[in-house]
């Protein structure tokens, strides 16, 4: 842990806090204050935060100062004789009026920043952000690019079986990529429960609500990698839903978009040309896919969580009714946490994971499902 901040720094901070010394230098140097972030807006937000913090400190010094002065000097053990005054209209008016003035002074810059934050007009690029349990989906509305972004931290690190990496819980398989110097507008929605998309460096936190669309924007000036996570309790794996945004120079961004389009075309072609897989191949790919996508609910051992997530081990669905099994994995089940994976996974991944579920944990049906079976099951649903 010392790697992240020296012990001496930590103790110093604690001492300063205990002494109530709001030293600007310490506040900025420390990783225990709000981030300044990387956008004009986030700088404004940081400034608002510090101004109101200093105002509070000043009021605290005055009020607590008077109180402690009274506690020291006006104590019975010092022979203090109690005065008998019990009111003063002048004082009451004074200490009603002064706070009102302070609040008005504070409200002006806050109002200005807020109006700026909420103006997402004249954007250069729009990205639709969709939350679902427990991943983010990004769709570039101006380009034919869309993908899911999932936690990339290995289970072993979470379960303390392996050393934790530098970006523990703050790493994803596919980061969101945005261009620098452009006004990027985000549209937020959700497929299931309410999530909240939060990147502290942009001072953006916006709820992703099912059935509704929120909007927010940012403009990042310098390339970099920025990390955040879901901020609204969204069920079991709420703590495992990170966000990584990579800002690239405009030219690099265009090249990245082109590469994504190309890669997508190649993957589709490869999938169509793919030969049927052997049972070993299906089981290996299936296990990998299952543990990444399904195990969060149905558990690695396939037993689910009684009363919350159904078991697959020994279930009728996974041992007998193959068409229903294909259907629920591809199309999901409305009104439950079971998502439609038809557009989240490739046909070979779908085939592999269904094969895996029908043969793992003693389900032993011997069924092999191939990509073409999945494609056949998907087609009627799409038309």
């Amino acid at each position, binding site marked *: *842990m010392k790697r*992240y*901040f020296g012990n001496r720094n*930590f103790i110093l901070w604690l001492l300063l806090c205990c002494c109530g010394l709001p030293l600007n230098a310490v506040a900025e140097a420390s*990783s225990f*204050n*709000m981030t300044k972030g990387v956008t004009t*807006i986030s700088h404004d937000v940081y400034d*608002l*935060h510090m101004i*109101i913090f200093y105002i509070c400190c000043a*009021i*605290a010094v005055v*009020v607590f100062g*008077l*109180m402690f002065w*009274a*506690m020291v000097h*006006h*104590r*019975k*053990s010092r022979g*203090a*004789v*109690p*005065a*008998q*005054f019990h009111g*003063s209209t002048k*004082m009451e008016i004074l*200490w*009603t009026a002064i706070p009102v003035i302070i*609040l008005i002074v504070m409200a002006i810059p*806050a*109002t200005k920043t*807020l109006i700026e934050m909420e103006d997402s007009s004249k954007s250069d690029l729009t990205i639709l952000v969709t939350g679902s349990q427990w991943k983010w989906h990004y769709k570039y509305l101006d380009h034919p690019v869309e993908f899911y972004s999932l936690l990339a931290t290995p289970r072993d690190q*979470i379960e*303390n079986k392996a050393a*934790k990496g530098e970006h*523990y*819980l703050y790493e994803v398989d596919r980061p969101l990529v945005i261009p620098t110097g452009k006004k990027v507008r985000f549209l937020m929605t959700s497929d*299931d*429960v*309410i999530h909240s998309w939060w990147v*502290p460096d942009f001072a*953006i*936190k916006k709820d992703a*609500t*099912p*059935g*509704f669309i929120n909007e927010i924007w940012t403009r990042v000036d310098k390339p970099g990698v920025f990390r955040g996570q879901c*901020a*609204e*309790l969204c069920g*079991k794996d709420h*703590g*495992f839903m990170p966000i990584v945004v990579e800002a690239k120079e405009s030219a690099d961004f265009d090249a990245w978009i082109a590469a994504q389009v190309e890669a997508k075309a190649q993957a589709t072609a490869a999938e169509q040309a793919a030969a049927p897989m052997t049972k070993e191949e299906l089981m290996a790919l299936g296990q990998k896919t299952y543990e990444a996508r399904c195990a969060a609910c149905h558990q690695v051992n396939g037993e689910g969580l*009684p*009363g*919350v997530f159904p078991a697959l081990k020994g279930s009728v669905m996974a041992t007998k009714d193959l068409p229903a099994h294909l259907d629920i994995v591809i199309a999901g089940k409305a009104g439950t946490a079971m998502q439609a994976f038809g557009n989240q996974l490739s046909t070979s991944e779908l085939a592999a994971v269904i094969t895996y579920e029908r043969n793992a944990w003693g389900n032993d049906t011997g069924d092999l499902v191939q990509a073409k079976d999945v494609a056949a099951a998907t087609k009627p649903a799409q038309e």
Partner: protein
Amino acid sequence: MSTNELSANETSHDHDHDHHDHKPTGITRWLYTTNHKDIGTLYLLFSLLMFFIGGIFAMVIRAELFQPGLQLVEPHFFNQMTTLHGLIMVFGAVMPAFVGLANWMLPIMIGAPDMALPRMNNWSFWILPFSFSILLSTLFMDGGAPAAGWTFYAPLSTTYSGDSTAFFVFAVHLLGISSIMGAINVIVTIFNLRAPGMNWMKLPLFVWTWLITAFLLLAVMPVLAGTVTMVLTDKYFGTSFFDAAGGGDPVMFQHIFWFFGHPEVYIMILPAFGIVSSIVPAFARKPLFGYESMVWATSSIAFLSFIVWMHHMFTTGMPVAAELFFMYSTMLIAVPTGVKVFNWVATMWRGSMTFETPMMFALAFIVLFTIGGFSGLMLAIVPADFQYQDTYFVVAHFHYVLVTGAVFSLVAAVYYWLPKWTGVMYDERLGQLHFWCSLVSVNLLFFPMHFVGLAGMPRRIPDYALQFADFNALISIGGMLFGLSQLIFVYVVIKCIRRKGVKATTQVWEGAEGLEWTIPSPAPYHTFETPPQIK
């Protein structure tokens, strides 16, 4: 307030009653009791039990968060713990404790023989054990207890919840009924049973704050009942109040919940203001500064509490005009709250202070509650709130106002009135020890939460990134110490209940004012059967 004195013959009259207290014995005394003191005692003991049960849940949370990684509990169980911790502490510990104090003290403070509706009083208490048994029983069912947070946002609490939801809804209905009956009782008692001469502007502030609290309860508990009912019908009966697919709106849940929720937080703090306004003058030996402005400030806070609810929802996406309105109205609450703090300081100014345990907790309340108020003011600033929302900064904020605020005031009240209730002085040395242990550990527990929150740690997560590790370890240690410190409190209270200690006088505290200090210690089973004369 200095006029609340009994004439000499009234005092002796009550002494007579001391000798023929008719009370049943054994379990039926407590089951069938309609005596406000017995019911007050039941409420207080029940809330103490709930405080420890909710505390155990908090300890599970802190044990899991002691280190990064998943060590002790599964994320699903972790969510059940955060949910139950919140529900138990709000509805089981803090609210019943204030109702217990109201039962014990309101009739005595206004010179009434009992609460106005004693049978309903019995019922409103005895509903609670059933309500919380139902809620806690969900821990043992398939799928476990509710896990959508104490705020149970839809659709996480509807479509995506387990069957404990039905139990949870029924439990909330029951405790809502209990609260509403309690509130009606308080209002009727204060309106009708004041002793002759006890006019409105002579009421002790604890009575005033409880009267206003009771109206808040009446206004918002039905709203909570409506919310949970809609959750129930959405989940089981096919309605779509909170489901966009059926024409509903998940955000509407939050509007309705927080329309209840914000007055609710004042329900938990206004009586605390009343307690502190009783204790500070007593130990400063000086009348409360600005009595009338205290009453007005309390009323203003109660009114404002109905027009600030959307500050809990700034990130849900709302029109700029609404964000601005709720930012300004929320900031405005700082004004009457400030008036209260200034009045308390002015009461101490040029007093003659001593620092017994109740005063120490009251002083800590003033400082630490104000710190919670400061972070509340920061949270009102909408652009900054986007960074604070749903982080540990919010957790720090509401624990400062609820633990070092509401709970500290409750502890102060118990120390203040315990000699009157039991007839013996509590052990002052242990009281001071309890105070200092609590003060240090509670700040170790909650102060660093500001830092991890600002640095970006969201609330309600069972595991966190490595940069938060050191502070979380510290917070967990603070939490364990705070929990252990409360055992001293239990020991002190038990000692008093067993009548071990110096016998308390009628006056108990040199500078204390009010009718409760004119009756003997312990307070007789029946008081003020004939009303006292208020000069």
